[in-house]
Each structure stands twice: as C-alpha cells, then as structure tokens.
C-alpha cells in the first residue's frame, strides 16, 4: 500500500501533472496571453469604472434632454426686441412646446428650434392683432403696452 502510494506520488506530483498525463488542458495555471487587440481581464477591470461613468453621464444627458429649459429670446421672426423675453421650452409628448413666461402664448414643434420659431411667429401675430384696435380687456391692453415697448418697429 505504501509502495503504491509512493509510486503515485512520484508519478503524479500535482493536479496539473495528472491533467497533463490525461491530456487535459490546465486552465487554472496557464497564463493568459492577450491576443493583439483583445483586452485582458486586468485591463478590463481598469476600464469598467470608466464605462460605468460614461453610461451614467449618457443617462444624465438623456434625462436633461427632456427637462424644461428657459431661454432668452432676443429676436422675433421679423422684428427685434428691446430686451430679452423669457421662454420656457419643454418636451411635450413626441414634440416640444415653447411658452412665453409673461403671457399665455405658446408654439409647438417637432424639436426645440421649431417650437421657438412657432412661438416667435405667435408673438408677432399677437402683436399685429393688438395694434389693430383697442377693443381689448384691461389685461390685453397692458400686454399690448408691454409688447409696444418691447418690440422694435423697423
């Protein structure tokens, strides 16, 4: 029994030897040789935090895309403004809506630029309506005065 045990210990000193003798590849001890252009696990471990940060940043940018933003409008379609007008732009279903902060006027569009352009047109259209006559409520007459001061007639 002892002889057999000694023999086997001499013949097969380790599991790798045993595997070698039985034509099995030893994945536990064979060093990983990186192929050209293929990252090793160590390299990947270094990159993973950067990928995670990138994904987080991308997600943040995506969420920001749909957030409401306020811009200052300096120009209308054909007219200039004395001072900038605050406009809120928000995602609205598939498109966007641009709303004037100072009065209830809006413009819609498939993207932000289209929505702003529509609002610019609406402001001018309202202005032209208001300068037609004075048959308006007090609220509109004050908006009329506000727009008359704001819009540079050229």
């Amino acid at each position, binding site marked *: 029994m002892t002889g057999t045990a000694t023999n086997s210990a001499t013949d097969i000193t380790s599991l790798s030897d045993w595997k070698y003798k039985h034509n099995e590849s030893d994945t536990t001890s064979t060093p990983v040789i990186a192929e050209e252009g293929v990252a090793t696990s160590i390299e990947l471990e270094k990159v993973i935090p950067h990928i995670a940060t990138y994904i987080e940043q991308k997600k943040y940018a995506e969420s920001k895309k749909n957030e409401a933003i306020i811009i200052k409008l300096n120009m209308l379609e054909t007219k200039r403004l004395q001072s900038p007008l605050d406009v809120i732009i928000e995602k*609205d279903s598939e498109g966007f*809506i641009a709303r004037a902060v100072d009065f*209830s006027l809006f413009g819609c569009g498939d993207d932000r630029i289209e929505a702003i352009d529509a609002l610019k*047109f609406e402001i001018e*259209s309202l202005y032209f309506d208001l300068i037609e006559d004075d048959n308006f*409520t007090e609220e509109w007459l004050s908006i009329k005065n506000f727009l008359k001061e704001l819009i540079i007639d050229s």
Partner: protein
Amino acid sequence: MKNAQFNVRDVKKVGEKKLHIEFKSGKEFNGWFKLNGVKAKRITVPKGRKSIPRKTYASMARQLGLSVSDFDQLLECPLTKAKYEKIISK
C-alpha cells in the same frame, strides 16, 4: 385631462360653434373670444397635429382662462357658453 379624447379639429369646432370664435389662419389657427363685445381671450390651435399633447392641451385651457377639467367639460359639452362667461368674469 382628456387630451387623448380630442384632436385639434374638435377644439377648433367647439371654439367656433360654442364660443363663436372666428379663427384666423396663419401658421396656426388663432381666434379671439369676445366677452360683451370686447376681445377677452385668445386661443391658439396648432395646425397639423391630430392628437393634442398634454402641455399643449393645458396651454390652450390656460389661454381660455380655464382649468384643465373645465376645458375638458367645454369640449365634452356640459360647459356652456354662459357658464364659460361666468368663469372668466370672476
């Protein structure tokens, strides 16, 4: 909010029939509601949009001086012109 039930044509039609708004056609439809002969509210109805997005719907309600639920009722019918005038006269 019942924006999904109505489209821009419904809003325009109700504006014309119920509130006697005359719409002008530009890039969008615009019209004035007259209270006792005085132009009191101005509504914009976007062109070329079959369904009305939520914020656009709420903005149209705001232009008419209505809450979203009153605007729902205006479009659904229970809210008459007389009731509407009462709301905006407050």
